[in-house]
C-alpha cells in the first residue's frame, strides 16, 4: 500500500466565484449561495444543467444556541441542487472539521469514479444576529457535560489552552504573533471581496488589543461573516475544452487525533503528532514532497494555527514556527520570503474557513491572480482547520 492517490491530477478545478464577505448580507444565505454557484458555473463556461454533482460541508461553527436552518444559516448540497439542477447524480456533505479538504475529496472521488461529471463544491458561512458563541443553556447532556459545568466552553478557551502550552514550551512572543496577524490583514486588505478590504492592521494596534482568553485577543480570531464561495470541478480531460487553465488536485490528507479527548480540548502534543502523520499521508497521496510545492497557504482561523501548520508540513522544525514568521519570513512583499498568508487567510477575509487558502492556490496556479499573481506557481498546497482534525490538499498545473 503506497498511499499514492490513483486519481492524482485527473480531476481539475475549472471555475470559481467568491461572494462579497460582509458582517450581514443583504439577502438570505441561500440566495447568496445560488447566485455564487451560478457565477462559478458561468465562470467555468458551463450551464447549470451540466452540473450533475453537488458537494459541501454544512458545519455551523458556533457554540451558541443558533438554529441550523437549511437555506438560512447553512446551505446543504441538496438544498442548492434543488434550486440549480434537481435530482443530480451525486450530492454529498462532508461532516468532519477539515471541511475544505473533506468536501473537495468527495468531489474529486465522485468525478474520478464517474459518479458525476461536473461538480460544484460550495461553502456558505453565516453570521447569526446576536452573540456568535454565547448560550443561555443551563443544562448540558452528552459530551459537553464534562466541560461546560466546569467553565470550559467555546473555541477561544480551546485555542488559548493549546497556544499557551506552545508559548510556555517554546517561548513564543506576542510580537511574533503580531507578524502573523498583520501579514494576514495586509493581504486581506488588498482583496476587493474581503470584509477587511482596505483595512490593514498595524503592529501597534495588534499589541494594544486586550486579551479575551490569555494569550488570545480578538485580532487572533477570524471575524464571523456572511459569505459564500463556489468551485467547479470536472475531469482533466473535459477541463481541456473549458476557458480557464485547469488546476488539478494531486492528493489530499486529513489528520487523525491520536487520543479521544474532552470536547474542544486540543493538547499541543496531539496536534503535533497527528500533524506529522497527516503530512506523511499527504506527500504519499500527492506523489510529491514539500520541496516540490511552489506555494503553501496555511490556515489561520486562529492565528497560532499558522505556526502549527508550518511545523506540521515541515516548513520549520517543531517549536520554530514563531521564529520562522519573524523578520519578514512570511512577508508576501519581500522577495524570497514564504508568503503563506498571501490569501489573506480567514484573519484577512473573515470566517470563510479554508476557502481563502483553496482560492489563492487556484488563482495562482491558474494564472488568474491579477495584481497578486506570482511567477512560476505550478504546484500549491492549501490547509484547513487544525493539523490533527483538519487536512490539506495539493494542486498541480499538470494533468495526470
Amino acid at each position, binding site marked *: 500500500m503506497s498511499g499514492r492517490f490513483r486519481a492524482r491530477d485527473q480531476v481539475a478545478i475549472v471555475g470559481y466565484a467568491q461572494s462579497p464577505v460582509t458582517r450581514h448580507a443583504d439577502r438570505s444565505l441561500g440566495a447568496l449561495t445560488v447566485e455564487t454557484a451560478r457565477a462559478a458555473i458561468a465562470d467555468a463556461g458551463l450551464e447549470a444543467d451540466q452540473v450533475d454533482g453537488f458537494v459541501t460541508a454544512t458545519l455551523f461553527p458556533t*457554540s*451558541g444556541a443558533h438554529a441550523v436552518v437549511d437555506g438560512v444559516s447553512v446551505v446543504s448540497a441538496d438544498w442548492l441542487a434543488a434550486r440549480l439542477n434537481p435530482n443530480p447524480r451525486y450530492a454529498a456533505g462532508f461532516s468532519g472539521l477539515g471541511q475544505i479538504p473533506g468536501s473537495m475529496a468527495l468531489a474529486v472521488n465522485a468525478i474520478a469514479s464517474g459518479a458525476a461529471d461536473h461538480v460544484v463544491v460550495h461553502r456558505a458561512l453565516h453570521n447569526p444576529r446576536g*452573540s456568535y*458563541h*454565547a*448560550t*443561555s*443553556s*443551563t*443544562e*448540558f*447532556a*452528552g*459530551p459537553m*457535560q*464534562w*466541560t*461546560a*459545568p*466546569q*467553565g*470550559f*466552553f*467555546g473555541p*477561544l*478557551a480551546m485555542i*488559548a*489552552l*493549546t497556544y*499557551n*502550552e506552545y508559548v*510556555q*514550551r517554546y517561548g513564543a512572543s506576542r510580537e511574533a504573533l503580531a507578524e502573523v496577524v498583520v501579514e494576514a490583514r495586509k493581504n486581506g486588505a488588498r482583496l476587493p471581496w474581503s470584509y477587511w478590504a482596505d483595512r490593514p492592521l498595524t503592529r501597534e494596534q495588534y499589541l494594544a488589543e*486586550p*486579551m*479575551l*482568553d*490569555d*494569550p*488570545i485577543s480578538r485580532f487572533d480570531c477570524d471575524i464571523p461573516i456572511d459569505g459564500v464561495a463556489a468551485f467547479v470541478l470536472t475531469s482533466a480531460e473535459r477541463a481541456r475544452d473549458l476557458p480557464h487553465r485547469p488546476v488539478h488536485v494531486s492528493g489530499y490528507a486529513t489528520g487523525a487525533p491520536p*487520543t*479521544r*479527548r*474532552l470536547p474542544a*480540548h486540543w*493538547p*499541543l502534543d496531539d496536534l503535533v503528532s497527528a500533524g506529522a502523520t497527516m503530512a506523511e499521508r499527504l506527500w504519499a497521496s500527492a506523489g510529491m514532497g514539500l520541496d516540490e510545492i511552489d506555494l503553501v497557504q496555511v490556515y489561520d482561523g486562529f492565528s497560532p494555527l499558522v505556526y502549527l501548520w508550518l511545523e506540521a508540513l515541515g516548513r520549520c522544525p517543531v517549536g520554530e514556527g514563531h521564529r520562522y514568521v519573524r523578520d519578514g519570513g512570511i512577508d508576501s512583499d519581500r522577495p524570497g520570503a514564504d508568503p503563506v498568508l498571501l490569501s489573506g487567510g480567514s484573519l484577512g477575509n473573515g470566517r470563510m474557513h479554508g476557502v481563502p487558502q483553496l482560492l489563492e492556490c487556484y488563482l495562482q496556479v491558474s494564472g488568474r491572480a491579477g495584481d497578486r499573481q506570482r511567477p512560476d506557481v505550478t504546484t500549491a498546497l492549501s490547509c484547513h482547520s487544525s493539523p490533527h482534525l483538519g487536512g490539506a490538499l495539493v494542486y498541480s498545473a499538470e494533468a495526470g
Partner: protein
Amino acid sequence: MTAVERPEARPVDTQRPVPVPDELSAPFWAAAARHELTLARCSDCGTLTHPPDLVCDACGSTSPRFAATPVDGRGVVRSWTVVRQSFLPGFADLVPFVLVDVQLVDPALAGQPDVRLVGRLLDGVDAPLSAGAAVRVAFEQLRPDLAVPAFELAAS
C-alpha cells in the same frame, strides 16, 4: 479523598450550567457530589479513562462495564488560560478566572495513556502558575447534590 473546606465548597446561588447525568456518567457525578474524583476503569483491560465512552479506547471492548474508580486527584498543569469573557450563563461574576489543563498523575495511571481534565483553578488569577505546577482536585458545590471538579495549587 477528603473534601477541603473552603468558601467555594459551599453551595452558592448560581445560574451556572449543570450536567445531565446519563448511564455512563452517573457514577462520576455521584462520586463528585461526595467530593471524590473518579475515572472510568474498563472491566476488561483495567485502563482508566475520562470521560467513559461506548467502546474502550484501549482494548476495543464493546462492553467495557466501566467502574468509577477513585484517584488521588493530584495532577500537573500542562496549560492554562485566563478567561475574561465567558459565553456561559452564571460565570459573569466569576470572570476573570483561570482554566487549567491538568494531566492527572495518580500512580494508577503509570504506563497507560495520559488522562487530562480541564477545570477552574480556584486560587484566583494572581496565583503563580507555570507549566508543570502541582495541583490537586477541588470541588465547587453548585447545588446541595451537585459538585463539579476544579483544581487548586498544591504545595510541592
